C-alpha cells in the first residue's frame, strides 16, 4: 500500500496549483478586500470604542475582521478546492500519475495553508500600517498619552497575526479531514462551521463544567478539550498590548499546540481519503 509513500516535490506541485487556482478565483479576492477594507475603515468607527484605548480598539476590530473573514475563507475555499478536484474529476488524472493519496492531500493542505497565510500576512501588514499611522498622529496630537511609554510593539502585532494564521491552518486541516470523508461539499462546509463554533466556544464549557460540573459533564468537557482545539489559545492579540507583550515561549507553545492538531487532523484525513473511491 502507498500509505507512507511521500515525495515533497509532488506535494509541492499540487500545492502550487491549488494556490494558483485559489488566487485566480473571486472569493479570496473579495474576502481579502472586505477584511482589508474593514481594517482601514476602522478609524472611522473611533467614536464607538466602548471606552477602550483607541489603538487597542483599532487592533481588536482589525484582528476581529481578520478572524471572521479568514475563517469563512478557510472553510469555503478549502472545501471548494478539495471538492472541485473530486466533482470536476481532475483528481482522477492527478492520481493516475505516480502520486500517492498522502501527497495529494498534503498538497491540497499546503495550498489551502498558502491561501490562509497570504491572507494573514496581507491583513497583518494592513492592521500594522493602520495602527502605525494612527499612533504617529496621536503622538503629535496628544503626546501626553505616551509620556510613560506605551508605544505599540509591532513585533507582537506580527506574532499575533502569525498565531491567527496558525488558527486558520488548524481550521483548514479539520475542513480537509471532514471533506476527505464526506461526499457532499455542503455538508462539509456546515460541519466545518460546526467545528469552528465548538473550537471558538469550548472555553465556555471548560469554565462552566471542568471544575464545578458533575463527573459526566467534566468528562465530556475533557473529551471536547482533547478532540477539538481551543481557538482562544491562538488569540495573542490581547497580549500584544500587555506590559510584558508576547513572550517567545508563549509563541512556541501556541505553535506546537496548533501543529499537533494539524498533524492529527491531517493523519485522519489521509486515513479516510486512502479508502475513498474516486
Amino acid at each position, binding site marked *: *500500500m*502507498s500509505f507512507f509513500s511521500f515525495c515533497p516535490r509532488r506535494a509541492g*506541485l499540487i500545492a502550487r*496549483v491549488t494556490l494558483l487556482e485559489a488566487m485566480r478565483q473571486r472569493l479570496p479576492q473579495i474576502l481579502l478586500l472586505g477584511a482589508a477594507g474593514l481594517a482601514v475603515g476602522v478609524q472611522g468607527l473611533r467614536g464607538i470604542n466602548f471606552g477602550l484605548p483607541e489603538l487597542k480598539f483599532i487592533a481588536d476590530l482589525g484582528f476581529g475582521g481578520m478572524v471572521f473573514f479568514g475563517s469563512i475563507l478557510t472553510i469555503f475555499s478549502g472545501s471548494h478546492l478539495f471538492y472541485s478536484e473530486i466533482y470536476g*474529476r481532475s483528481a482522477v*488524472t492527478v492520481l493516475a*500519475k*505516480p*502520486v500517492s493519496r498522502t501527497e495529494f492531500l498534503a498538497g491540497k493542505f499546503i495550498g489551502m495553508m498558502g491561501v490562509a497565510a497570504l491572507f494573514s500576512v496581507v491583513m497583518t501588514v494592513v492592521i500594522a500600517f493602520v495602527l502605525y499611522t494612527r499612533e504617529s498622529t496621536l503622538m503629535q496630537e496628544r503626546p501626553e498619552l505616551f509620556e510613560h511609554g506605551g508605544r505599540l510593539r509591532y513585533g507582537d502585532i506580527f506574532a499575533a497575526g502569525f498565531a491567527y494564521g496558525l488558527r486558520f491552518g488548524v481550521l483548514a486541516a479539520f475542513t480537509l479531514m471532514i471533506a476527505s470523508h464526506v461526499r457532499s461539499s455542503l455538508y462539509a462546509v456546515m460541519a466545518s462551521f460546526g467545528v469552528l463554533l465548538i473550537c471558538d466556544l469550548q472555553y465556555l464549557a471548560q469554565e462552566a463544567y471542568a471544575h464545578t460540573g458533575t463527573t459526566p459533564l467534566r468528562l465530556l468537557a475533557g473529551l471536547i478539550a482533547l478532540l477539538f482545539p481551543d481557538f482562544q489559545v491562538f488569540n495573542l492579540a490581547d497580549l500584544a498590548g500587555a506590559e510584558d507583550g508576547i513572550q517567545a515561549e508563549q509563541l512556541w507553545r501556541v505553535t506546537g499546540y496548533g501543529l499537533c492538531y494539524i498533524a492529527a487532523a491531517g493523519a485522519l484525513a489521509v486515513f479516510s481519503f486512502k479508502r475513498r*473511491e474516486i
Partner: protein
Amino acid sequence: MTTEAAISIQGLTKDFAIGLRGTRLRAVDNLSLHIGQGQIFGLLGPNGSGKSTTIKLILDLLQPTAGKCLIFGVSHDLAESRRTVGYLPESPYFHRYLTGRELVGFHAGLAGLSGGQLARRVDEVIARFGLSNAADRRVGSYSKGMLQRAGLAQALVHDPRLVILDEPAAGMDPAGVEEISTMLLQLKAEGRTVVMVSHLLGQMEEVCDRMAILNHGRLVWEGTRADLAGASGRQALVVDELSMEHLGDLRQWLEQRGSTLRGVGQPALKLAEIFRRHTAVAETRRRF
C-alpha cells in the same frame, strides 16, 4: 526485450455497496486478463459492463474487493507502478484556471520530469496535439475537442510505456476518429502498449491487435483480429462489374471445387467512408 505483461490481472472483482442496506452490486466479476507489451488492446462492452471500473481498478482509483493487478510486474496499489502509465479519462476535466501549458507542465512534473527536460517535452506534446496557439489560454475556455487534445498531451508528456485511453474518440467527428486511429497506430509503432475502451466497434476492429468483451462485469470473449476474421469460416469477395453470365460461371467454378456461393449482393459504401470523402477537403481545418 522482456516478455513481462504490460498489465496482468488475476481474479479481479469489484463490488459496490448500494443504498442504506448496503446491497452489493458486482461491477467486475473475477476478471483475468494478460495484456502483452507493444500491442493495442481494446476493451469493449455495453454501458455498465464494467469497462471503466476495470480501468479505475488498474489505476488504483478504486480498491478491488478481490484479486490482484500488476503493471509491468509492479503491484498496481503502489504509486510507483503508475510512473510508466499515461491515462486519458473519459470526458476529461482539468484545472480550469490553469493555462494549457501550465496544465501539461503540472502533469509532467507529477510524472517526475523537471527543468529543461520538462520544458522540452511540454513544448513537444503541445505541438504534437496542435495546441500551440492555445497553450497560454486558460483550460476553462477550451472546447471539448481541445480538452481531449490537452488530455492526450498530459497523458503522453512523460513518454509512458503504457497508455490507457477511456473513450478517446467520444464526441468526435469522423475525421477526429480517424486521427485518433492514426495516433494509436503511431503509439504502437513507437513500442508503447495501448489499452483502449471504446464503443466505436469499427475503430476497435481497425486498430486493435487484441480485444476483450465484458458483459455484466464478466469476460465473455477475448481474441485477436485474426480470430474475428476466421470466426465465421466464410470468405467474402468484392468484384467490380460482374455480369449475370459470369456470375453463373463463377458459381459453377466454385461448386466444382467443393465450395458454395451463399449469396450475391451489392455492398454499399460505409457512411463513414462517404462522410470522409466529402469532408476531406478541409485539410487545414481544426480536427477536433
